[in-house]
């Protein structure tokens, strides 16, 4: 398949994404985290059938970068907000804690394997590389997909405090991987660009404020799109050039826009309308970039997945301790936190683009594996938990 044909496929995927995720939520079609698009990308990619070749995958790297920035912008724009309702500070704090638990659990497990299993450690002999790998793995698996809560609300028509709690967590834990990656990328000077600690967040924040000021108080749709696309592209491009995290810049841009602009609700609505057309091609591209791990790397991958499950158990216990109503979900709630989705994949994609080679390959493969495993376990477990809590009709 040449570049043109690959572009055609990508546009078709975007087209499908627009239909499947257009309007209000998932409209009852597709898997909650969109893992089928990851698998499709992997199957057609160079690691499997090779219909999309390595050259095409590289040619679309700018699109992948752009998509990660846009996903982060959407996350920032809707951070701490559930529909029209604001998530309280306590819920945000709980979400961040859950995210930190997952990050620490996965990063710690990966570090242990690298230090204790010689064959795995031999693949990454440099200590700073090990640290980078552990941090990136932790970041890519720190987020619970917000789409799983949306899926429960829209497809299962679930309503109630347990779902609200899950939804609040999934809308708040995003900040953990983004902040971690922002710190990591901005402190890394291997690309001969000076370090700007947390520069991505600062740059994105300033651009977000400028965007809010330029949008003013009256929304003109044409100007809105020109400005939103313009700022998104500019932030992604500038962040790439001065070696800052694209995710952090996009997130801060969206967050500051949401905070500073009186047009935030309309901005969320308009930007959310193109969510599917961006996310599904990003998942497809991530799948096509994924390589098959083998040998000792499987130890690291397996440890990361197990740590993720263990972190889910701890998180569920924490949620139950903080909120007595969440106890009604029972032990299934822990497995409900296993769904990772577009943001986790965007983090991994971002790592793959920023740290190409063994680190990027393994982080992307692990993240894809976690998304697929999470898809099988997370949504059914959440359904059981919600049913047990009486928030879904039996």
């Amino acid at each position, binding site marked *: 398949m040449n570049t*043109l044909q690959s*572009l*055609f496929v990508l*546009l*078709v995927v*975007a*087209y499908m994404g*627009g*239909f499947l995720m*257009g309007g209000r939520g998932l409209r009852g079609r597709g898997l909650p985290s969109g893992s089928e698009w990851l698998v499709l990308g992997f199957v057609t990619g160079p690691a499997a059938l090779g219909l999309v070749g390595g050259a095409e995958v*590289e040619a679309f*790297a*700018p699109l992948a*970068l*752009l998509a990660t920035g846009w996903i982060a912008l959407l996350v920032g724009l809707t951070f701490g907000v559930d529909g029209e309702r604001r998530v309280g500070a306590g819920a945000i704090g709980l979400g961040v804690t859950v995210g930190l638990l997952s990050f620490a659990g996965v990063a710690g497990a990966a570090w242990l394997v690298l230090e204790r299993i010689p064959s795995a450690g031999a693949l990454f002999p440099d200590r700073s590389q090990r640290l980078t790998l552990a941090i990136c793995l932790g970041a890519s698996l720190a987020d619970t997909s917000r789409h799983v809560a949306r899926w429960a609300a829209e497809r299962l028509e679930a309503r109630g405090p347990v779902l609200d709690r899950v939804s609040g967590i999934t809308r708040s834990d995003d900040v953990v991987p983004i902040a971690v990656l922002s710190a990591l990328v901005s402190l890394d000077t291997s*690309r*001969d*660009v*000076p370090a700007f600690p947390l520069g991505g967040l600062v740059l994105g924040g300033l651009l977000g404020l*400028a965007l809010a*000021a*330029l949008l*003013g108080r*009256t929304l*003109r*749709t*044409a*100007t809105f*799109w*020109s*400005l939103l*696309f*313009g*700022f*998104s*592209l*500019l*932030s*992604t*491009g*500038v*962040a*790439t*050039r*001065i070696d800052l995290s694209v995710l952090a810049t996009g997130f801060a841009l969206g967050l500051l826009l949401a905070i500073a602009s009186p047009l935030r609700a309309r901005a969320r609505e308009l930007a959310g309308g193109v969510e599917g*057309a961006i996310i599904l091609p990003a998942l497809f591209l991530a799948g096509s970039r994924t390589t098959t791990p083998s040998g000792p790397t499987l130890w690291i991958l397996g440890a990361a997945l197990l740590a993720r499950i263990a972190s889910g158990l701890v998180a569920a216990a924490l949620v139950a301790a903080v909120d007595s109503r969440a106890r009604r979900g029972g032990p299934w709630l822990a497995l409900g936190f296993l769904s990772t989705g577009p943001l986790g994949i965007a983090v991994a994609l971002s790592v793959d*683009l920023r740290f190409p080679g063994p680190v990027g390959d393994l982080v992307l493969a692990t993240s894809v594996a976690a998304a697929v495993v999470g898809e099988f376990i997370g949504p059914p477990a959440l359904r059981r938990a919600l049913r047990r809590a009486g928030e879904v009709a039996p």
Partner: protein
Amino acid sequence: MSAPAAKGPITRLLELAALVGLFALMLGVDRITGTLPGAWQRTGRDLAAVGFFLLAGTLASSLLEVLRLPHLTGFLLAGIVAGPYVLHTVDHETVADLSIVNSLALSLIALAGGAELRLEAVRRGFRGLVAATLVQNGLALLVIPATFVLARDLVPFTRGMELPAVFAVALLWGVVAITRSPSAVMGILSQTRPAGRLTDFTVGFVMSSDVVVVVLLALVMTGVRPLLEPGATLSLAAFGELGHELLGSVAIGTTLGLLLVAYLRFVGRQVLLVLLLLGLVVVDAIAYLRFEWLLTFLTAGFVVQNFSRQGDKLLHAIEHTGEVVYVIFFATAGAHLDLPLLRTLWPAALLFFAVRAVTAVVGARLGARLAGDPPELRSWGWAGLVPQAGLALGIAAKMQGQFPAFGAQFGALAVAAVALNELVGPVLFKLSLDRTGESGRGSAAGG
């Protein structure tokens, strides 16, 4: 490109500050990264450049509203200032990378142009359109080559040429001069949303001029070849190919138009992505089959508008997509303008620009008188014919391949002349729409 709305001085100051801030950001990033190598730098440069063009073009066009200048001029100026010849915030390599937007923008422009051609309006102004086409092109093909021959001392590459050869080059220059700019016209229409006789006439003339130019180019190139290449003979084979190309393009365009009608009628969603698919993928497929894709899209738009009720839906979708695509397209075109070359060739470029404009004015008066057109066409019918852009440069590039002995210098002169037409033409066209009171009438009619 939304309709101009009243903005206060604080908003203007904010926009100016943001524009200055954008330039400062781009220059600052350049200073930090210097000439760092790597694909990631190139990717970053490309993405930042697209975003920058989009923002700087939008802000510059908004600021120029104070001077009643068209948005398009703002896009072009933003590109020129940021481009490789002034501040160099966007370099040559990046400008070349962004040319992928061209086919997308031009396909949208052709589709919109076809959809703006309403059969009823064409029928009503048919007499005037035919008269103008004959008079404008006939006059231009007489006056401009004659000027070229007389002013050949200003054109360095004609020195040492025999007079018949100069005459042949002058005729080729005449063909370049009769090209118009559908993109500039559609860009201005998108901003001003006009309606009326001048609008109908300009759209009809400019869109059909593409076909006229393609036919005339084949005729002139076949005719002058023996004058330029001593061993060459007159061959009519080119006309067979041309006929095949034109008819095939119309046939494919009709099919595409019918498919679009069916899509808009029965699905109607995600039109943006369908337009992207057409502009980024289908264009290349049509070009691969050696058909004229601009004509194909023009026909498709015409079919949708005149043989279904989906025309307005299509125009609406193109307008939304175009609002973003046009900014990038024209800003990139601005960055592409070779200013040092214009500095070298300005006497000749200025002369040809002035003669072409005067010919258009005289042609409009003559044509309108012959056809009995209303006074607004007699006074302003020429204004939309002044802008020039991609088609002229495309033909000049084709000449470089066909006539390598002088093609490069010929192309350089074309770039210089087109630069003037590209900058001044849109201003004149917008002025004509404002003066005839047609600006804004389209949106008012549409509710």
